[in-house]
């Protein structure tokens, strides 16, 4: 029987402190048994002399200074891991909540993980097909990449996440087993429900492993949710050689939980009250994506976050984008005009796509099409701002062609149905069609030979007709 400590010294928010302890190690897990028989889990976050500070995952509600007995486990938090986790639903701390009983573990995994040695990484090279034109063509998702979605309250990021889960697939050789780990942090009950229902309806649920932490659940558990999910993902990818797509929503709630935790610990705040280690902390999650030597699996991450007040310079999106390999950004204006998914093409970027597209992966002309679409759409913005000053009639013919291109591009390329799953060929051909609405001389990012072969103004006609009508 291990040593039990009776009572506590203080309680402050989710933190409790004990005194007179010995032999306790930093970051280990303790079980706190209450007099009413229930048990809670705590983690050591600070040690000083004979004093230990614990964060209690389930919250401190109902805990008094005298009604507890604490036992230290001597180990960091571990969760049971098995392939059978797919199709199951867990809470933020990795406990099953779908009523199907415990997972029979093949092994136990430390949720903290360990940093990947850069030498052991393989550079990510192949892509994941999402069936969404804007993503596939302009911000291609690469296996082993971390590519966050920056959204705002009320925008359709949840819908997009479901569509990605539904449609995501691998192509080409080595496509192997593909599965999804879904971590929800601080989401509302009905949003969690929406995800669960959608996965069931679309038949995706048996390849999805869900970790749910609702907005009413304790914040400390929220801090564990992504760690548990990523531990499961790493296990499936690197030990079972599967390709795992991890979707984590909402990172803003996660960061806010971290701020709450930090302030109850009495730490010195950095920017906007977030702790100074927010960057390192986020990095310890995001960097758990990748491909490693000696395994054919991969961990790809799509973290979703809502930008507070749509502000992309807010610390959470800002630090995230410095760690992740690009970002997919929602545009409120497009969303309100009914364009789904209303993604801001110019603000979005996939840093790894240059090495994972083209001949052998997607199609030889992919890079040319996407560069030209970017460049042309950038000019649309110039034409629009000029038009707002001097009026559309005063514009040159070229500028007017750009205005038209902007319209048909947004309506036909960006905009697509929730059930519309476009192949890579469809997406790229559509890109060509739309580019053909511009004068040939404007297509300066495409080399002559390719342009000669593909350029034909007639290709754009049906879209122009439609826009006129």
């Amino acid at each position, binding site marked *: 029987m291990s040593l039990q400590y009776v009572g506590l010294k203080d309680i402050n928010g989710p933190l409790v402190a004990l005194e007179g302890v010995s032999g306790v190690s930093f970051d280990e897990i303790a079980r706190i048994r209450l007099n009413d028989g229930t048990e809670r889990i705590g983690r050591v976050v600070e040690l000083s002399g004979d004093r230990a500070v614990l964060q209690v995952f389930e919250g401190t509600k109902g805990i008094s200074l005298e009604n507890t007995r604490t036992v230290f486990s001597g180990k960091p938090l571990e969760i049971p891991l098995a392939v059978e986790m797919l199709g199951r639903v867990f809470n933020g701390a990795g406990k099953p909540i779908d009523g199907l009983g415990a997972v029979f573990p093949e092994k136990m995994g430390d949720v903290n993980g360990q940093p990947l*040695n850069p*030498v052991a990484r393989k*550079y990510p090279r192949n892509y994941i097909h999402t069936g969404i034109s804007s993503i596939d063509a302009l911000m291609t998702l690469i296996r082993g990449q971390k590519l966050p979605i920056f959204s705002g309250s009320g925008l359709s990021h949840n819908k997009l996440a479901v569509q990605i889960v539904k449609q995501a697939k691998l192509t080409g050789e080595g496509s192997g087993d593909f599965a999804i780990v879904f971590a929800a942090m601080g989401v509302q009950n009905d949003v969690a429900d929406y995800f669960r229902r959608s996965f069931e309806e679309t038949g995706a649920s048996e390849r999805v492993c869900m970790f749910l932490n609702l907005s009413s659940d304790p914040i400390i558990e929220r801090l564990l949710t992504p760690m548990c999910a990523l531990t499961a993902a790493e296990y499936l990818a690197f030990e079972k050689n599967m390709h795992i797509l991890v979707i984590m929503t909402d990172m803003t709630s996660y960061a806010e939980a971290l701020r709450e935790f930090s302030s109850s610990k009495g730490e010195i705040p950095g920017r906007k009250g977030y702790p*100074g280690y927010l960057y390192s902390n986020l990095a310890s999650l995001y960097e758990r994506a990748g491909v490693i030597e000696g395994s054919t699996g991969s961990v790809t991450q799509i973290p979703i976050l809502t930008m507070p007040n749509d502000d992309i310079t807010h610390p959470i999106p800002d630090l995230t984008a410095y760690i992740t390999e690009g970002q997919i950004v929602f545009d409120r204006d497009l969303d309100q005009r009914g364009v789904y998914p209303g993604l801001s093409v110019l603000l979005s970027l996939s840093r790894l796509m240059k090495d994972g597209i083209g001949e052998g992966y997607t199609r030889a002309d992919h890079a040319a099409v996407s560069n030209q679409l970017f460049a042309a759409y950038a000019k649309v913005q110039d034409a629009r701002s000029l038009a707002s000053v001097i009026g559309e009639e005063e514009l040159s013919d070229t500028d007017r062609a750009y205005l038209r291109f902007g319209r048909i591009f947004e309506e036909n390329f960006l905009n697509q149905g929730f059930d519309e799953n476009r192949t890579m060929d469809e997406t790229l051909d559509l890109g060509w069609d739309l580019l053909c609405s511009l004068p040939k001389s404007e297509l300066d990012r495409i080399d002559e030979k390719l342009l000669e072969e593909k350029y034909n103004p007639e290709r754009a006609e049906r879209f122009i007709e439609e826009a006129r009508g």
Partner: protein
Amino acid sequence: MNNTIYSINGPVVKAADTKDFSMLEMVYVGEKRLIGEVIGVTDKFTTIQVYEDTAGLKIGEPIESTGSPVCANLGPGIISNIFDGIERPLRDMTKLNGAFIAEGNALFSLDTEKKYDVTVTVKAGDKLSGGDVYCTCPETALITHKCMIPPNVSGEVVETAPNGQYTVNDTIIKLKLTDGTEIPLTMVQKWAIKRARPIAKRLSAKRPLITGQRIIDTIIPIAKGGAAAIPGGFGTGKTMTQHQLAKWCDADIIVYIGCGERGNEMTQVLEEFSELIDPKSNRPLTDRTVLIANTSNMPVAAREASIYTGITLAEYYRDMGYHIAIMADSTSRWAEALREISGRLEEMPAEEGFPAYLPSRLSEFYERAGYVENLNGTEGSVTIIGAVSPQGSDFSEPVTQNTKRFVRCFWALDKSLAYARHYPAIDWNQSYSEYVEELSDFYTENVSPDFMTLRQEISNILQEETKLMEIVKLIGADVLPDDQKLAIETARVVRVGFLQQNAYHKDDTYVPLEKQMLMMRVITSIYHKSLDALKNGVMLSDILATGVFEKAIKMKYDIPNDKLSMFDDYLKEIDEKIGGLTV
């Protein structure tokens, strides 16, 4: 007495009631012997930052003193290696721990088994002092390693080993110091990473670091031994620019510090640099590159150390007479590591939570750059190119502002250029170089006597465009008179044809200085000839219809780097086509 752990808070550990430790001393913490550094000493507590993950440490575990500061091991085997922030070899670590980094392995930095082909360059009786070379060996195909007497040592050689095959820990010579003691010297020396290695004197910077990147070499140049900052928000291409510089600049050795950045980026550098062949030597770029990788998820204290480790390695090779360029990506992450540790120590924060000593740490770092005369009389240089990642792309934040005070070359990356896919996205209006004057003699003598004039003209055209665009934004381009429209058209050629550079194009990725000069000559010639034609009453539309503007935009691709004579044809064509226009 037994020193033990009293408290643990993240990477900060304290020992109570001990007087055994000195500031900045290296210590081993706990049963696993994690590496740490003493960063605060009071009579009650000794504060230690630990370079490895502290999970699992217990109160009461021992802390072991080493008596010396945190040092880098300097000797053959550094080049083409990849280290973590405290110079542990990451490749060897994968052999020991697999794909993930585990704690508590104090691996020696250098390969102790590899034998080098050593030539001893001194004989018994020679009097040597700090910096003198006593033996050399080929380290890679490109770099000859020169083992030097440590800076603070001098004496007389009493014994030398014969030339032959030695490992780094074999004794090469024995030296009798002035006080009579004899010490053996191997091929390895230690140096405290936070102390600059001494030099004989600083020399003024007169030679540019040639990078093959047009906007840098001609418009905003950096000198060998200079310091530059590349600030830019996410997605503006900081890392890409640094990769380009690391690949192409004419330094002998590149020290690439990945400080708190992405793991995949380091992998990319590793892969790409081993495949890329340096055209001058026909050897892979890894033969002249050292990588220090402390990615964002590796322990934060080691991130703080990685910058110092990098510059110490660079100074060591500078002492041999080499020219080194350091890419530090990113110094903001390093500053954040300072902030994180400072917060754990509950120090009084200054601006945005950064510690008040941030500026002094930054200046200490950038001041270690320089073009110098070494103790042994050779010349060498360390050039620092530091990326800065300003929060929210706001250049008024503390790290950017303080960095600006200590560098003389500022390459500001601009978001809107990056969105328009104008790469490198260096904003010519915000960026500056204080080296231009000092370097003008070099360009005039080595490239062309009119180089500086051409450069000035190109700058003027860009300036003019910036001014005109204010008007165009308000009322459109149509109302401008023809000569102003011409300036805008020429500026477009400068921007698209000259400043934009394609890192993925075989010729355009590196452009020799002569081609840069000739390109400027073509553009300025178009401008002058067109101005003359306008004066003679020719319409701008007719000038544009000649197609020379479009041709000039494509000349970077159309003229191969080894066929520069083609520029004569271009100049002739401009002469004929624009000069031939009549009213």
